[in-house]
């Protein structure tokens, strides 16, 4: 009789724990996408923290050094999105540089609290007018 009680309790505890873990995991998964991948299914990532990777589009960088707000456009040559980042740009941040920003979309602008500049010797940014190799870009940003 004791064994049956233990077994039932055990299953119940496991069930509750499993459910809690599932929920926690679901909320904490941070997907990594390129702008064009996000564009294919924006609703799939609604209200979630995601990591967006791409290049800094030249001529779009604005830094307000009083409010410490950085604005720029992130692109993978197929799709672009405006990014807002609270903080000073790190040293390697410049046009055509590969970056990964973590945050979420708010009304069309990606508001991010983490910005990582990807220093890769393998990826060479294209000359103006040349298309970007999207797969290569994704590999070097990961």
């Amino acid at each position: 009789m004791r064994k049956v009680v233990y077994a039932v309790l055990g299953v119940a505890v496991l069930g509750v724990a499993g459910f809690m873990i599932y929920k926690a995991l679901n909320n904490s998964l941070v997907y990594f996408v390129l702008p064009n991948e996000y564009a294919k299914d924006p609703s799939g990532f609604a209200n979630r923290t995601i990591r967006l990777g791409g290049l800094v589009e030249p001529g779009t960088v604005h830094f307000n050094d009083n409010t410490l707000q950085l604005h720029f456009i992130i692109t993978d040559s197929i799709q672009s999105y405006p990014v807002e980042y609270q903080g000073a740009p790190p040293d390697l941040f410049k046009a055509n540089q590969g970056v990964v920003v973590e945050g979420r979309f708010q009304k069309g602008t990606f508001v991010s609290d983490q910005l990582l500049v990807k220093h890769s010797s393998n990826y060479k940014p294209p000359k103006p007018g040349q298309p970007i190799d999207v797969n290569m870009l994704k590999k070097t940003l990961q």
Partner: protein
Amino acid sequence: MHYLQLGHLGSASILLAFGLALYSAVVGVLGARRRDARLQTSARLATVATFLVTATAVAVMEAALITNDFSVLYVAEHSRIASPLWVKIVTLWAALEGSILLWGFLLTGYTAVLAFTAPLSPLRPWALAILSSVQVFFLGVVAFLANPFQTLPNPPMDGPGPNALLQNHWMMAVHPVLMYLGFVGLTVPFAYAMAALITRRPGTEWMVQTRRWTLTGWGFLGAAIVAGGWWSYEVLGWGGYWAWDPVENVSFMPWLTATAFIHGVQVQERRRMLKSWNVMLIALTFCLSILGTFLTRSGVVSSVHAFGAGPVGPAFLAFFVLVTLFAFGLIALRWDDVRDRAELDAVVSREGGFLGGNILFLALTFAVLLGTLFPLVVEALSGQRVTVGPPFFDQVTLPLWMLVLLLMGIGPLLPWRRADGSSLRRNLAWLAGGFVVAGGLALLLGMREIYPTLTVALAGYNLVSLGLLLSQALVPRLRLSTRAPMAVLWSYAHESRRRTGSMIAHLAIVVVAIGIAFSSGYRVDQQLRIGFNQSATFQGYTLTPVDRFMERTASRITSGAVVRVSKNGHVLTTLRPRTNIFGSGSRPVTKPAVMDTFSHDLYLSLDNTIGPDTTYVVLRAVYSPLVSWIWFGGLLLVFGVVFSLLPARRRLAEHTATAAEEAAKA
């Protein structure tokens, strides 16, 4: 001297070491099976030879690093002429191949010591053979898959130097060594456990013989984890010490299962129960440490710490599978020898407490393992790259931590077999009192965050528990002795080293828990832009950058700001956060400046590089209350372990002497 280049000497040494380890393993197994003393002695001597030869390989590598011999591949890839001497020495373990060599070296050292200090027993030859087999793997990887000693026909003039993040702090010299000493130390009880299963001697023999090794390995691993946290804090610039990064997690999981193991050992010693738990826990500890090595050296997880992809990944995965099959297969085979024949007398008992602890630690390990491996599963199934962020780990593990703290307080107070009602109720009343008083105090002082408040309440509860334990032990002694209470306490501490050591260790955990609760719960993080000779306020401090500075040494260029920190008009200190560039073309690496006090840390990190024309500094200021309690708690834990390991004073001689003195006075 073309044919006696250092690279050749190193490669030859490693190859020889591999051969000797193979010999030890094979002859060890034969000697153990046939109970042939000559074969066993031969195997034991071979372990010493393996150690000496591996030491030679390590010495050769250090020589190559120190003399800038760029014909050796590892030196060419990871060292730089301009680096200071300590960096060159430490470069031995700065990268993949060298770190495996270090692991192998420490393993051969431990095995050699064990071969000549372990008591003679049927377990010893098997344990040594298993250790030698593990050596065969590690030395084999170095010799055949990732040989750092390969000779370059056209050596470069200079190298890139080790990863900039590793040169930034002296902890680089300490943390990896502590970590490997921990993992290797825990391999010893694993080997003995397997030996016990093979020889069908599943009793306490194997645990008693390895008790010191287990405790030492556990202590080193715990120290390594805390040291790693401190290092991250001092170096990485975000003011945090733990990010639930996959590499951090894989060092943490074996520590969790090892903690459950060192507690389970006591139940087996006293009541001969939970044998199957213990043997599974130590097997799990070893398997997790190999899994961890695989994850950090194969490139499958993205992490700031990972060594990156390499040819060793598949080898470690194969070894992990092999070890897991071997260990758990052996346990299954010998299940009848280890399974519990008796049930617990009562759930509310010391044994029940330990069992509960085992379950909690396993649950924690499972949660961390799930969070760490989940991205791999997702990527394997869908190709999507994901990361599991800290919120998952926090949400799932924090409730379990609270339960651990709860159990830690009541567990040592529970009697063996069955708790009798009245004394249990009395203890619980005291404990509840401690909980309520501490919790009440926290609420009165304005604390409202749930986990910090709960941690404070549980800290009070645990302090009461330690007080009860001490009084239970000391009051009878005080009644019988005429000496001063402090002297009685001192004698007790030295006679019951294990008990006292465990009390110190539990106290250390409480201190660390408080440190973590406050520094995460009440941390303030702000980015400030301050012009030179202007001020900004942060958490009651006034920060004024007064000057810039630049240093240039042979190996690095440093630029930073001199920031004056004042409070209420008094200048408290000057902090110099800076950025370092090691070698041309490398990333600038920030080096934060920390002002640490007993109650909190003021942490400043530079977010912009200071040049001659820069007119302002962008500082990331972090205020972390009680964060130094974590490092102090870590030291206390190490002290507790050391205290436990020292030999106990002879009680009988002491008492006889004291009684004689007192009788003479009467």
